[in-house]
């Protein structure tokens, strides 16, 4: 099965640039999430791969084939839309059979393959139903079956779970993942839901304002974001502006409004440069004032609890640490701090990640 390769892909609508010089290569059998806020150009990208939008510049390659000029019907892309786009006038069986009919597959072979794929997605009994007689999850499975039965060279999913309720969404995530592994099909998965992207994807491509920000494994995107927008879009984070004061290896010290802070940073972030220190709320510990000394190289700050929210498995605190900085901290429910409590907060140098650039 083929890989997807985008080379300098650009799409302009009038004066607005929807996708700007996007270069991205998906390895064979890989599931890549194209993640970004709505209107960032991810659906436009998907449509350029499928052939519904013509790129202003750049090439689209599927496998070794340059399909930039090919019409959609010649690209052999399996496509699943957010609202599934099931043909309402056709039964489930007819929907799934559509692509095979277009390929001139004979009747016996067609029936066999449709039955096989419907079994695989767990819809074996529902072939004669019409889409409107199906639940959301069943419609989703029908759409997947219809896209996969044609043995597409790539699978393109456009927010496939956005219309499902939370519980079903979780279930379908794993279903899509296992189906994708079984078919070993190169898949591009467009989503604005960062949790979905992190859970599902082999690699995550974060795209903002039409520009690719970062393309890495989910853990790296989460722990070592390359830009401030990526850090704030993926998960929750605290950002403290500062200036690099010292650096040795990956470790560095940042001069900030709340004093010097120890953290880590990417190569190229040198003395005197403006930076933002990103600290995830779950990596900060909170304790009673003056309870314990920090480990060597860690950070220890004094603060006052301003707000506390109960999230079930943990508490969400907002702690004022002076210098106009309020930290968001998420911690266990064992020790409870109340609003207006004076507390000490700790975080390890490894938990702080410095990003190039100042405020804004």
């Amino acid at each position: 099965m083929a890989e997807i390769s985008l080379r300098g892909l650009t799409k302009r609508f009038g004066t607005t640039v929807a996708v700007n010089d996007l270069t991205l290569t998906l390895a064979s059998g890989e599931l890549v999430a194209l993640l970004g806020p709505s209107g960032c150009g991810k659906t436009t990208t998907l449509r350029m791969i499928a052939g519904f939008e013509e790129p202003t510049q750049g090439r689209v390659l599927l496998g070794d084939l340059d399909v930039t000029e090919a019409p959609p019907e010649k690209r052999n892309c399996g496509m699943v839309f957010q609202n599934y786009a099931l043909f309402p006038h056709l039964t489930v069986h007819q929907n799934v059979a559509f692509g095979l009919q277009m390929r001139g597959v004979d009747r016996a072979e067609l029936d066999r393959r449709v039955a096989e794929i419907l079994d695989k997605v767990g819809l074996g009994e529902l072939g004669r139903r019409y889409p409107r007689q199906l639940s959301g999850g069943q419609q989703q499975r029908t759409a997947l079956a219809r896209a996969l039965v044609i043995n597409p060279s790539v699978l393109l999913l456009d927010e496939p779970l956005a219309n499902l309720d939370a519980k079903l969404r979780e279930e379908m995530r794993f279903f899509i993942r296992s189906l994708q592994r079984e078919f070993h099909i190169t898949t591009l998965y467009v989503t604005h839901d960062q949790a979905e992207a992190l859970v599902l994807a082999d690699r995550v491509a974060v795209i903002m304002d039409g520009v690719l920000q970062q393309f890495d494994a989910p853990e790296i995107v989460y722990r070592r974001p390359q830009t401030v927008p990526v850090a704030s879009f993926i998960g929750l984070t605290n950002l403290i502006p500062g200036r690099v004061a010292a650096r040795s290896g990956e470790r560095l010290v940042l001069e900030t409004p709340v004093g010097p802070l120890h953290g880590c940073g990417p190569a190229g972030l040198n003395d005197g440069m403006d930076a933002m220190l990103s600290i995830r709320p779950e990596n900060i510990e909170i304790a009673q004032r003056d309870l314990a000394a920090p480990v060597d190289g860690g950070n220890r700050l004094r603060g006052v609890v301003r707000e506390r929210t109960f999230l079930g498995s943990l508490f969400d605190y907002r702690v004022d640490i002076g210098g106009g900085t309020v930290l968001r901290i998420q911690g266990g429910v064992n020790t409870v701090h109340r609003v207006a409590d004076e507390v000490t907060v700790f975080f390890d140098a490894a938990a702080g990640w410095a990003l190039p650039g100042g405020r804004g």
Partner: protein
Amino acid sequence: MQAAVGAVRARPGIRVSGQALLITPALGLLLGFFVLPYLNLLLISFFTKSPEAPYLRVLTLVNYERLASDPFTWGVVWRTLWLGAVTTAVSLVLAYPIAYHLARARRHLRGMLMVLVVSPLLVGVLIRTYGWIILLQDTGLINQLLQAWGLRKLALMYNQTGALIGLVHVFIPFMVLSLAAAIQGIDPELEMEARSLGAGTWRTFWRVTFPLSLHGVVAGTVLVFVLAVSSYVIPSLLGGFTVLTVPILVVRTITELFNWPGGSAFAILFFVITLALLWLYLRAVGRVTRPVT
């Protein structure tokens, strides 16, 4: 709790009577100016014709017998239905692409296109028809051009062609609007999906777009057919006296031959035939579209 349930139950009753009240004026208008005259017409069609008065109040079946046994009647009926069918078919073929673009156009463009589409209706029927005469007549603009290019003159008026052109022109908006409403209801992603599954544009149209717009096709064709077979001014002006349709003949029977019962009977007969045809048509289409609705 019970009180609340009671209140909820009471509400639909109030709503229904309120709605009934709202449609009363329209219903009254329809009854007074449509149903009653039609019943009157039905009654007259069973009266006896008379040289002295519009009719004699003596019930008879002679009017219908005479109509049914006259091959001329059936010739006119056939020609009228044929003209209506061709008008409908031509309108459908011409209107579909317009309707498609209208439905898929951007919002601000859609309003402008809509005005263009309904523009034939903004001009009175007589003025519009005379406009066509200027274009179509033997010495008209089109034939002058043809002659200037050294081509043969075409008989575009005072025949079926003339009537057809006039009818299609004025009834196409009804077709376009019916179709556009239906096409607008089709998610463009359905067409994209069909394309990505390997259907070219043509097969996408026939397998997805057209079947899903069928209710618009039915609405448009019924509307245009009914309007075309019952139109009077256009066929009589553009068709001259060679195109004899049922409405023209009915009017002539009554105003020139002073045969009120005969004209009424013909009108009623044609009404029944049209109704029967529509019923058959809707039943046939209904069988095709049943899974959708």
